Structure formats: C-alpha cells, structure tokens
C-alpha cells in the first residue's frame, strides 16, 4: 500500500478550481478511491492508497482524475490526445533474455514547476518500487528531449564498454564500474547478475541516455524546471506492465498540460509497436446481475450514472449496459470489478444493511469442544491459563530442555533467532513463562492448551499441527505426585483411562518420569523437571508437570 504526499492546495485547485473544498468533506471522497488520509502537515497531505492494482492512483494527477468524477465536476472517460509521429527506437534482439520490452512517449510544451517535478519523481519512485517490483518488472526513465538525436537504440553493451557519467556523478564510469560503485548500481546490481551484456539506451550519435534499469546519464537523463520537452521511457520484463506504466506516466504529463507524441518501437522479430497505447476495452453488464450481487434494485440509469462518475463510459440499451473501460484500468479483470465501482460511486451509504439471519446451524469444532473441557478441568486445579507463541528456537526446545537437537520446522528467513522455529512440544513455553516470573508469588501453577508442529514428510504440508495440553507446578515442595494428581484429575474429568509407565527423558529426573499411555499408545509425558533444565531456565524452584496430546 503506497503512501503518497500531495500538496493539498494543488489537489483542491485541480479537483474543483471554482469551489473550495474543506478537508472534512474531502475525506469520504478519498475513501471512494480506496484510500485514506494518513496525515496532514501544513499543506502536505499524506494519502495511503489502498489498491495495489491501481498504480494510476499513486500520483496526485490520478487521484484528481477520480475525484473530479466523484465530485461531479467531470464524468465519463477522459480522452488523451496523441499525435502520431515517427520517433523511432530500435530494440536489440539480445535483450530478449535480459529486459525485452520498452515503451516511450514524447511530451512537448509542458511547464514543469519544482512542485510538479517532485510529484513526478514520487510517482516514478512508487511505481518502480511496488508495481514495478523494485525495478525487476518495470522501471521508468525521463530525458531531456531537446538533447537527443533520433532514432534511438535500446541495445546491449559489454560491461566495460560505453562508459558514461551516471546521475549525481562527475566522471565517466563503465557499466561494470557503475554496478560496483554507484549507490543505485549497488542497490540494483542483482537485477543484472549473471548477464554477459547489460541493457543500454543510446541516441543516434551513440550518446548514452541510460543503463536500464540501473541509472540515467547525468547529461541526457535529467529533467528540471527549464525542461519543456521530455522523453519518457519504460523498460521491463512484462509487456503489459511496461505499457501500463508508460500510459500512466503519459497521462500525468498530459494532465499537467503536455502534448503527447507517439513513438515507434521497432522490435527485431515482431510487428513494430506504437506507444503509448490508450486502447479501451468493452464490457457488457446486465442490470439484473448488478441487482443480484449488490442486493439492491439499481435502475439502468443509476448504474450508468455511477459508472460515469467512476470515469467509465457507459450507456444503456435494453437492460444491457455497455461499459467502456479506460485504458489505465488494468485492474478491471472481471465484471465484479465494475460492480464494485457501481456500488462505491452510487454511494455505499445508500445501501441499507439487510439483517436476514443465517439459515445455517452453528457449531464449534470438536477440537475446540475438547479444549474447553480440558481448560475447565485445569482451572479446577487452580492453575492459571497462559497463551504463548508457537514460534520458538532450537535453544528453547532442545538446549535448555537438556535434549539433543532433532528435526523441527525451521524458518528459512527468520527475523530474529528467538523466533526462528516452530515448537514441537509445549513444555518449553511453560518453562519460559516460569523463567519470567521467578520474583512473583509461589506456588505457580500454569497450563496452556495450544498447537505445536512436527515435521511429517507424508503430509501435504510437510508437517502435522497437533493440539496439546501442558501443565506445570513450581513450588518449594512440588513433586511428581502433584503432576500425576493433576493429570489424573483431567483424565478422569474427560473419562479417559490413562496409565503411567516408568520412562526416561533427559528433561526430567530419572526415576521420576512417566510415559502417559492411553489405549496402548503414548499420548504424553509427566515428571519432575531435571535440575539441569531448571538451571538452564534460571529457576530455583522445584518444578513438575506433564504434557499430553489432545489430537
């Protein structure tokens, strides 16, 4: 979810120049584009844009486009005029396996203020970062059109050829040096890892515009307040995404008064492309389908009106609505996407919640029913229930418990060692809890009903999640009887027949540990915790307990 900063005065002026909008009134309209006001400081409004599939909204121009519809200032599809030209870019075939696609537009006669440039940089940054998957899928470059000699070439270079001065530097570096020295080179070098050749964008005189997706040239790849004619380029690995990003950038420039000129992309083994592409799509929706899903009998007129507010073109013909989808609405994949816009732009507050009551019969899971009985019985022994994390680590589970390391489910990308594995038994969680309460009142009697995870290669998820009960008593005179009594009480309460069989387990004192058997199978363990284990946890109080499976 990108956060974007916009100038409030700029936004208001663009939405409805003739009538002022106060902030309170603005908020519900911001919600209509699935966004929220995240903060305001002076004239800077921070907007959290909620829709990750709508990069067209990640800039003030895009928000304004929608808001003008919502405020009924404008309706229907916004038409972007494109002048056909023969600016041409040749694409090298060897890019097929590196970064195959490019799309460009030439913008002329645009007046770039400092503020507009900042907005465009922010848009570029957000789109590259999120929608462009940190430049892996797409990246944007801007150039001073007046300095370029056409036609351009989107080609390849050897790592030590085509040295140029990258942005913010003063001396020439080869592509290889850029990856090793330039901050952006270091940040994005992984995108070109293992490549024999790197993408390079050059003009007819062989001057370097940029090395996509890493860095622009300091000479050609800069726009400032004096720039009036701009070349916008997008390269990437996904054709549709590249074209969508270019389209959105082109619209931003057009919304700021620029004139758009098309560019011919000359691919080696396919038909040349003309970019940007503003092709619309068409959907037909039935009035009755809208009514069925939304549960409200909207008229064809209501639907058309809502769609036009949402910047679609729409018209009705015999209960069938013809909808034209704006080119930038790549998020519209299914008619339901259109239904949602109808609901939002008709006004959510116009839908009365219908409280109907469900025709179904509710039911707790068997596991929950059992765990409630178990918990009730444990509380009957005056034990305090606790809830702890399933996440733990090798040291808690094995080292501290005086056990040899064994296979457990470990996390490949842990954030900290503390939470780097899933517990395969509950007792360490109780020990950890007790270790945090050594200065508190004793006796301490605690229990937890919770899940543990053990590896199981036969399972479709490589593991079994098992529901367990663990119980511990820590007191000056706690002994095996306390653990056995409590477990016996729980088992009796459940009507379970359990048997205690002498058992050895390194976490417990030999001769004071038993396997807990039910129906001939071991379901758990009970015992007096070994002083070595107590010491590992920093406990000085005798501690006993048990753990049984409830699954």
């Amino acid at each position: 979810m990108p956060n974007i900063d916009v100038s409030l005065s700029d936004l208001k002026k663009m939405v409805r120049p003739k009538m002022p909008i106060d902030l309170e009134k603005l908020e519900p309209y911001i919600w209509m584009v699935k966004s929220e006001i995240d903060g305001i400081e002076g004239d800077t409004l921070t907007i959290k844009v909620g829709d990750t599939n709508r990069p067209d909204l990640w800039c003030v121009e895009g928000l304004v486009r929608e808001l003008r519809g919502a405020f009924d200032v404008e309706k229907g599809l916004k038409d972007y005029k494109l002048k056909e030209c023969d600016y041409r870019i040749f694409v090298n075939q060897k890019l097929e396996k590196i970064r195959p696609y490019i799309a460009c537009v030439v913008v002329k006669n645009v007046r770039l203020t400092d503020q507009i440039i900042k907005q465009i940089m922010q848009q570029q940054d957000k789109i590259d970062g999120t929608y462009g998957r940190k430049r892996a899928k797409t990246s944007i470059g801007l150039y001073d059109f007046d300095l370029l000699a056409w036609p351009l070439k989107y080609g390849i270079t050897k790592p030590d050829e085509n040295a140029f001065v990258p942005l913010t530097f003063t001396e020439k570096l080869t592509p290889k040096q850029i990856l090793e020295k330039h901050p952006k080179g270091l940040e994005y070098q992984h995108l070109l890892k293992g490549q024999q050749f790197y993408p390079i964008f050059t003009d007819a005189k062989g001057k370097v515009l940029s090395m996509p997706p890493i860095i622009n040239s300091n000479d050609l790849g800069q726009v400032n307040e004096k720039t009036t004619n701009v070349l916008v380029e997008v390269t990437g690995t996904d054709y549709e995404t590249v074209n969508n990003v270019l389209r959105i950038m082109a619209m931003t420039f057009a919304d700021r008064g620029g004139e758009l000129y098309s560019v011919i992309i000359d691919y080696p083994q396919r038909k040349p492309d003309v970019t940007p592409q503003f092709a619309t799509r068409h959907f037909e929706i039935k009035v009755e389908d809208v009514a069925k899903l939304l549960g409200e009998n909207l008229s064809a007129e209501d639907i058309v009106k809502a769609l036009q507010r949402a910047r679609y073109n729409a018209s009705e013909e015999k209960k069938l609505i013809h909808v034209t989808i704006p080119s930038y609405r790549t998020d519209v994949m299914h008619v339901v996407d259109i239904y949602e816009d109808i609901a939002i732009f008709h006004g959510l507050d116009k839908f009365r919640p219908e409280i109907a009551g469900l025709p179904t019969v509710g039911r707790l899971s068997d596991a929950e029913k059992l765990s409630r009985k178990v918990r009730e019985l444990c509380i009957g022994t005056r034990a305090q229930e606790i809830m702890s994390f399933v996440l733990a680590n090798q040291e808690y589970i094995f080292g501290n418990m005086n056990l040899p390391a064994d296979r457990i489910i470990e996390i490949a990308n842990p954030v900290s060692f503390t939470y780097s594995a899933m517990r395969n038994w509950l007792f360490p969680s109780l020990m950890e809890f007790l270790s945090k309460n050594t200065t508190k009142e004793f006796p301490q009697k605690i229990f937890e009903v919770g899940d543990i995870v053990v590896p199981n290669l036969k399972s479709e998820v490589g593991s079994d999640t098992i529901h367990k009960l663990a119980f511990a008593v820590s007191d000056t005179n706690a002994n095996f009887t306390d653990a056995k009594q409590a477990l016996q009480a729980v088992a009796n309460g459940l009507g379970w027949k359990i048997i205690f069989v002498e058992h050895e387990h390194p976490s417990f004192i030999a001769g004071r540990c038993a396997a807990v058997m039910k129906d001939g199978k071991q379901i758990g363990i009970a015992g007096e915790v070994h002083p070595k284990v107590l010491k590992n946890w920093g406990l000085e109080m005798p501690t006993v307990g048990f753990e049984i499976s409830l699954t």
Partner: protein
Amino acid sequence: MTNLTKLADSLQANEISILKALKKHGQARHNAELRAETNLDQSAVARSALWLENKGLIIVKETKIEAVILTKLGRHYVTEKLPERKLIDALIAGVTADKLIYKFMDGKEFNAALGYWRQKNAIIISKEKTELNDVGLSYKNKKTIEENFIEKFNSVSELLIANLAPEDKEAFERLRKRGLTASDTRVERLFGITDVGARVADAITPEERIGQLTPAIIKSGEWQKKTFRRFDVEAGVPVLAIGKKQAYVRFLEEVKDELVALGFEEMAGPLVESSFFNNDALYMPQDHPARGIHDIYYVKEPKYGSLDAHKNLLKEVKAVHEGGGKTGSTGWQYNYDEKEAARLILRTQGTALSARALANKNLKIPGAYFAVARVFRPDILDATHLVEFNQTEGIVLGENANFRKLLGLLAEFAKKITGSDKIRFRPHYFPYTEPSIEVDIWSPALNKWVEALGAGIFRPEVTLPFGVKVPVLAWGIGVDRLFMIRENIKDIRQLFSQDISWLRERKL
C-alpha cells in the same frame, strides 16, 4: 452484647494470656518478661500482640534498652567460685598462699583476688605469711556484692540496667572492669495495656472458647457447652491465587460463542500451509508484493509440500491466474509456477482456512464457517507488532448471498462482538474480494473511529476453481484490536502476557 464482651469473645487463648499478664502487672512489659509470664515463644507473642494492637487493646512501643550480660569469663563464675572466694576459703582452711597459686588458681586470678581483699583492707600481707584480719574473716559466711550479682544469672540470662539496685549497679561496674560483665544496647518492644484493653481483660470470662471447629467437637457435642470465639471477619486475609482463563483466550471464546449463535461452523487447518492455499487459491498472483520474504515466513525444510491431493483444483487455479480460466476474467496474465504453489510457508492469513473449507468435499451450501486462526508475519516484536497473532475470519455461502446482506452481517457482528451500534462502511481493497469494504466502529472509550472489520464478496476467480457457483461473503474481525480497546491495553505483547501477576489480576 456490649462491644467489650464482643471483643473479649473474639480473643484467642494466646491473646488472652498476654492481655491478662499485662493487666496483672499494670505496667508496660518487655518482650522477655511477657514471654516468661505467658510461656509463649517469641513469634507467638509477636503475632498475638499485633492482633491485640490492631484491636486497640494494647500499645506497643519501641524503646532502647540497656541490658547487663555476662562475658564468657563471667559465665564461668556462675558455677565456679570467684577467685576472691577461693582465696578466702583457702586461707581459712590454712592453705598457704604460695601453695594456693599452684594448686587452686593461676597467678592472674590470685593477683586479682589478693587485690580485691587488699582494697577492702581485709587481708594482712607480710614477708612471712598472708592472713585475713577481722574484716576478712567476717566474709566467711557473708557473700560479696559481686557474688550476689553473679548469682542472679543462675535464673536469667540478662538484667536490665535500669532495674538494677544501687548495690548491683556497683557490682556490675566492678565486674565490668574485670571483664566479667558487659552491657548490650538494643531496641526492644514494650507492651502496655490500654484502658479499653484493661476493661476487655475484665470482661474475659474464664470459660474456654471454641477456636477452630473440628470434627471431634461436632461429634462430641462439646460445642453445646462452650461458646465460639468471635472472629474478626472484617480483618484482611492473604490473597488466594485461583486458576483463571487467560483473558484473551476467554475473549476469543466469547467471540466464538457469538459466531456459533449466529449460525457459523468452526473450521480448522494446519499452521504450516502451502503457498497454494495461503495465496494462489485466493487469487493472489505469485509475484504479488505481499508474497516476499519480508511478508511471509518460508519453511526451511521441507521446502515443498505436495498438491497431489488437489490436482484438479491446481489446474483450475493455474488457468485462472494465467488467463482467467472459465471465470470470465482476464486473469493475471503470467506463467503460473506449479512448484512455487507447493512452497511451504507459515500461514499468514486466516483466509487460508476459508480456502481449505471451500476445497472440502463436505462443504455445505448454504453454509457459514469461521475460524480463529493463529497466523505468522515476519516482524520485529514491539508494542504494536507481533510475529504471530490471531485472526478471526469466516465465510457465508448461499444462492441469495449479496452485498446488502454482507452489510447486514457486518452490522450484526459490530453489535454483538464490539457492542457498537455506530458503524460506518468504507470502500477498501483486498486481493480476493470484490466488492471489498472496511467497517469502522465508533469507540466511545477512545472517542474516535476504529477499524474493526474487513469484508467482501469472494471474486469468481477465487470461488469458481473450487466449483463453488454461489456468492461467498468473506469477512474478518480485528479481534486483537477490539480486545485491546476493551481491556485498555496499549502494548499488543500483553495479549501473550508472560507476567503471572498480570494474568491473575485480570477482571472477567
């Protein structure tokens, strides 16, 4: 019954002995004195005195006292004769002084004894012999003041300086110079009776009262002849640590009960999930930004699970992702990777359980399902972030399910689970629902709107691959936040509190 008799009736045997002892003596008594007079040990006196003091019957003052004690050497002479007595006895018996030194006493003792009598002018010492004069002989049957003083220690281990007679005081000073006695200064408690105490002491009847009622007393009928000692039922007692449900688990239990009452059936599922059920089946593309290593915990080993049991579903989901399949959608337009689908992760969202429910062959239509699911997210643990937490999510499937009914359901949740009537709906984005909405509830406690629920209707791209052709309403409740608001908890880590006192003190 007067207050005095009530008080008298409430006294325990030990309290009675102390009060009586103080009454009898009339003056403030020291601890040691009281112990001697009541035959009670130190802790019994202390405990009973505290009760009596709390009832206002006695006053306890702390005073500085000086006591005389014997040194090790001094204690020796409690049973042995003092050197001066040995000397006088020997001389009377006709033993010569020079023999005495070697036979009865060492030189040091002898010199001390000689000095003692010389100072009293009771002895004549010449070159020829040493003998007693009349003064000396008068001590034959008369004890010295030192002897009298030391004898007192036959029955006590110390004497209070303040209580010493002038003669004893003199003896004490002299013996101190000889290293036989010493003084000991300490703070002692002085017990005195109050006016009320004295009157209560008078009101004590001689009969024995029943303290702890025992089976023997009940059986024997002894209780019919005796009265019961009154207990101070207003007095404080030690806190009893009882067993309690963990407060947050208890809240989740309430939520579950509400959901069951509304008609929801509980779902279950594994904590380790395949990316397929956690994401793909919910129409989240495989390169979705929320599927990176910063948002999902990946399992180290085994890396991949098996989707063999879901071959058909996998085929359908793949088709939907790539081009919309049979759903009428454009799909995400990319090459779906079946291997990536089997990648094992720690469940990140409760919605994975809804996907499992839709895949279940026992799925009911109409149906309503819910789960309180433990989920995991890579994060640094702090006051606002947990690495694992609980999500409450569910679905409603039915031919007649629609958006307005979803709003109705959410309004009902808000009322039943958050207790709030004041709610508002906002458009929202979720990858798997369309339309999607978020519900804010008005929190009077915080005096602001709080995000409480998220919901929507599952996209056909989600439901159709499962063969589910009816609309599916999906919702989630921010139970963590609701509980924190209700319990006024500021630090989210307290949901998993490791402080036993905090857990014990929670109100239900």
